[in-house]
C-alpha cells in the first residue's frame, strides 16, 4: 500500500508543464516594493525612511511582535517611499519602495556556491539566525519559522516532516528546488532536525517526481558519509493525491496520526516544514543569507513561456510577466499559487512576497464555473472531503445561517482545500458558501472564548 492520507482527496491532472524548466534568476527590476506584511502575525515595523541607502540583505523592517518576522531589502539602492500600497489581494499594506542601484550585498553574507555541511551544535544561535534571516514557512501559510521551531513547553517533537509533496497541479518550484538544490534542502532539514533535538526526519515527495526522489536519496547517502548528523533522514514516496501537502493530511499520511480538531501538529509530535523553507534555513544559518529571493513557477497552458524563476522579493508581477513576453491574450485569470487554493489576482502592479510560489494563467475554458443545478445527492463532495465533513450538508446549513448546526457538523474543521467544489457534478459553489458559514462559526467560537 502506498503512503497517503486516510480520508477523502481527489486526483486532478497534475499539469506540471514547467517541470523541465531549470530555475533561472530573473534580472532585478528597476524598482522593488517590499511589503512589511509578508507573514502570518503582526506586520513588521519599518526601519528605514525615504532617502536611506540600503544594501541587499539589510533589514528594512523588524518584527512587530512575537509572531512576526524580519524583512530584508532584496536589492541595493535608495528608499523612495514608505507607505500604503495595494498588495496581491488589493489590500493596502505598508510597503517600502526601493529604487535599485547596482547590486551591493551586506557584509557577512556568503554568496559563494560552496556547500557548508557542518551542522552547528548551538541551537540558540541557530534559532536566532533563522529569526534574523526572516525565515517564514514558504509552503503557503508563511508562519514565522523560529516560532514553529520553539515548541511550547510540555510538548515533545517526535518527527520532522519536510513537505515536498507539491500536490497542487501546475506548481514545480519545490520540485526544481529538490533537483537543483537537493544538498542545501537536506542540510537545511538536518539543521531543523538538530534544533528539534535530533528527531527522525522524513522528506515526503509524491510519486510523480521520481527524479527528485532518486536525487534526494543519493544526496542523503552522500551526506551520511560526511557526518552522523544526517542519519535518521529518509525519503518517503507518497501516492499522488490532493491535498497531500496539507499539514494535517501529510502528518496522517506519514505518521498515521490525526491532529485533533483545533489542535496543532506538535500535539501529535509532528513539525512540518516545506522544502523551500528548509532551503531558506540553510541559507540563513550556513550562509547568513536572509530571504531576499524565492523560486516562482510561471506557468499555464496558454502561457507561451513556462519558467521557474528566482525572483527578488518585491518584484512587480507585471515585470515578471513582461520579461516572459507579456500577458497571453486568452488568459482570463491570474492566480498566485496553485489552481486549488491559490488566490486570483487582478492587480498586476502588486509585488511578490516571500511566500509567492507561482503565477498561473488560466483561460476561460479552464477556469469557467458552470451554472449551478440541483444537488443530486451523489455524495461525491463527502467522498472528496479530506476532513471527513459533509459539504452538501454544510452548504445547506450555511445558506440558512444555522451557526449551531454548522458547529455541530464541524464546519470549523474545513481546510478550504476546494475538493468538494472541484468534484460537484451539479456545479454547486460548495466551498464559497461553506466559507461564509465557517466564518460565522469562527466568530461564535471566538466570542465564547472572550466571554470566558
Amino acid at each position, binding site marked *: 500500500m502506498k503512503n497517503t492520507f486516510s480520508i477523502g482527496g481527489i486526483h486532478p491532472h497534475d499539469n506540471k508543464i514547467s517541470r523541465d524548466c531549470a530555475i533561472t534568476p530573473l534580472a532585478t527590476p528597476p524598482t522593488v516594493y517590499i511589503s512589511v506584511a509578508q507573514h502570518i502575525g503582526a506586520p513588521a515595523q519599518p526601519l528605514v525612511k525615504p532617502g536611506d541607502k540600503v544594501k541587499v540583505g539589510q533589514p528594512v523592517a523588524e518584527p512587530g511582535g512575537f509572531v512576526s518576522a524580519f524583512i530584508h531589502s532584496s536589492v541595493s539602492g535608495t528608499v523612495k517611499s514608505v507607505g500604503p500600497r495595494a498588495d496581491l489581494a488589493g489590500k493596502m499594506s505598508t510597503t517600502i519602495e526601493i529604487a535599485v542601484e547596482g547590486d551591493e550585498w551586506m557584509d557577512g553574507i556568503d554568496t559563494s556556491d560552496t556547500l557548508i555541511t557542518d551542522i552547528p551544535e548551538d541551537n540558540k544561535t541557530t534559532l536566532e539566525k533563522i529569526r534574523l534571516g526572516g525565515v517564514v514557512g514558504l509552503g503557503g501559510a508563511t508562519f514565522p519559522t523560529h516560532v514553529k521551531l520553539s515548541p511550547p513547553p510540555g510538548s515533545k517533537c517526535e518527527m520532522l516532516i519536510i513537505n515536498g509533496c507539491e500536490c497542487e497541479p501546475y506548481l514545480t518550484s519545490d520540485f526544481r528546488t529538490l533537483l537543483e538544490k537537493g544538498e542545501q534542502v537536506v542540510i537545511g532539514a538536518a539543521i531543523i532536525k538538530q534544533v528539534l533535538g535530533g528527531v527522525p526526519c522524513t522528506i515526503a515527495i509524491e510519486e510523480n517526481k521520481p527524479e527528485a526522489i532518486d536525487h534526494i536519496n543519493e544526496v542523503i547517502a552522500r551526506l551520511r558519509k560526511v557526518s552522523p548528523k544526517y542519519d535518521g533522514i529518509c525519503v518517503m514516496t507518497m501516492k499522488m493525491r490532493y491535498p497531500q501537502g496539507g499539514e494535517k493530511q501529510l502528518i496522517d499520511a506519514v505518521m498515521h496520526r490525526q491532529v485533533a480538531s483545533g489542535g496543532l501538529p506538535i500535539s501529535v509530535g509532528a513539525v512540518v516544514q516545506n522544502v523551500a523553507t528548509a532551503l531558506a534555513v540553510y541559507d540563513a544559518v550556513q550562509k547568513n543569507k536572509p530571504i531576499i529571493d524565492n523560486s516562482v513557477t510561471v506557468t499555464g497552458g496558454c502561457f507561451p513561456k513556462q519558467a521557474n524563476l528566482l525572483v527578488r522579493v518585491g518584484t512587480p508581477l507585471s515585470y515578471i510577466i513582461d520579461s516572459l513576453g507579456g500577458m497571453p491574450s486568452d488568459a482570463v485569470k491570474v492566480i498566485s499559487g496553485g489552481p486549488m487554493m491559490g488566490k486570483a489576482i487582478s492587480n498586476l502592479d502588486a509585488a511578490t512576497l516571500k511566500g509567492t510560489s507561482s503565477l498561473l494563467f*488560466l483561460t476561460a475554458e479552464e477556469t469557467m464555473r458552470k451554472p449551478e443545478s440541483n444537488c443530486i445527492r451523489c455524495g461525491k463532495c463527502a467522498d472528496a472531503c479530506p476532513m471527513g465533513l459533509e459539504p452538501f450538508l454544510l452548504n445547506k446549513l450555511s445558506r440558512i445561517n444555522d451557526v449551531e448546526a454548522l458547529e455541530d457538523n464541524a464546519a470549523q474543521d474545513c481546510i478550504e482545500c476546494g475538493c468538494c467544489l*472541484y468534484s460537484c457534478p451539479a456545479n454547486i459553489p460548495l466551498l464559497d458558501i461553506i466559507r461564509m458559514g465557517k466564518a460565522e462559526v469562527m466568530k461564535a467560537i471566538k466570542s465564547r472564548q472572550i466571554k470566558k
Partner: protein
Amino acid sequence: MSNLTVSPSPHIHSKDSTRSLMTDVVIALVPAVICSVVFLGLRELLVLAVSVASCLLLEWAVTRFMMKKPSTIGDMSAVVTGILLALNVPYTLPLWIVAIGAAVAIGVAKMTFGGLGQNVFNPAIAGRVFLLVSYPSQMTHWEAPQGLFGADAITGPTPLGAIKEGLLQGSSVKDIMAEHGYNYGQMLFANIGGSAGEICALALLAGFVYLLVRRVIKPWITLSIFATVALTSLIFWGINPDRFTDPCFNLLTGGLILGACFMATDYVTSPMSTKGGIIFGVGIGFLTVMIRYFGSYPEGVSFAILIMNSVVPLLNRWFKQKKFGRS
C-alpha cells in the same frame, strides 16, 4: 485596469457533470437494451421509445409551464428513468399504459418534489409499482416473444411467478424447476420469460461493471444486496429446499440484478455514506427475499427498494463517515 476575473478558489473543476454521469448510466444500460430488443423483438423498442419520450416530454412540460424554470431535460436523468421504466414492464404492455407509468414516474414521483435530487422515491420504481397495482393483469401478462431473429425464447410466466403458483398448488420447488426446465446458464443468457430487465443478467452486469470502472457508482450497495439475498435464501433453503428456492435462483431471477445495479444505486434515493449504503442494501436484500418467500406478489425487489428509499434520510443521519481528528 485589467479585465482579469477574480473569484474564490478552487479555480479548476473536474469534468464530471450531472449530464455526464447520467449519460454514463444510459451507456451502461445500452447492452441490456440491445439484448432485450434482440430477445423480445421490435415491440420492446417501441415500449422503450414511448417510455423515454413520455418522460422527456413530461419533465419538459412541468418545468416549462408549472415551475416556469429553464427545462432540465438536458441533464439526461429523464432518459435514465424512461429506459429503466421500460425495462421494468412486459414488452406487450399497451403503450398508453407505458405513458401513464412515465407520467407517474416523472410527474408524481420526481417533479412534485422539485425535480432531480429532491425526490424521496426512485421515479422508475414508483412508476412500475403504480402500474403493477393499477393494471395487474396487463403487468403480469407474458406472451411468447418473437425475438429479432425468431430466437427460441421461452414463453410462459417468469420463473418467480411459476414458483409462486406451483407452491400454491402444492408442488415442491424442485418439481416446478424441472417442469419448466429452468437452469442457471439459461437465466444468465436471457433465455427466460419476464420483462426486459429480468432477462438480461449478463448484459446488466456488464453495464454495472462499466459504471464501476467509470467511478459513477461505488459497489457497496449492490454487493450488500447480493450478499444479503444469497445469505437469507441460503438459510431458508437449507431449512426446507422443497418450500424455498435456492440462493442462485434468487440472485438470477426477477428484477434483482436490474434493481441492485441500477435502481438501488440511484444517487438521489440512496444513502450518502458507505456505511449507510451497506445497511440500505441489507434492508433491500432481506425484504426482497421475504416478499418472494412469504408475500402475495412473486417478486419483491421494487417494493423492497421503495421501502428502503423511505428510510434513507434516517440512514443519512445515523451513519456518517468518520471525521478527521475526531473520535
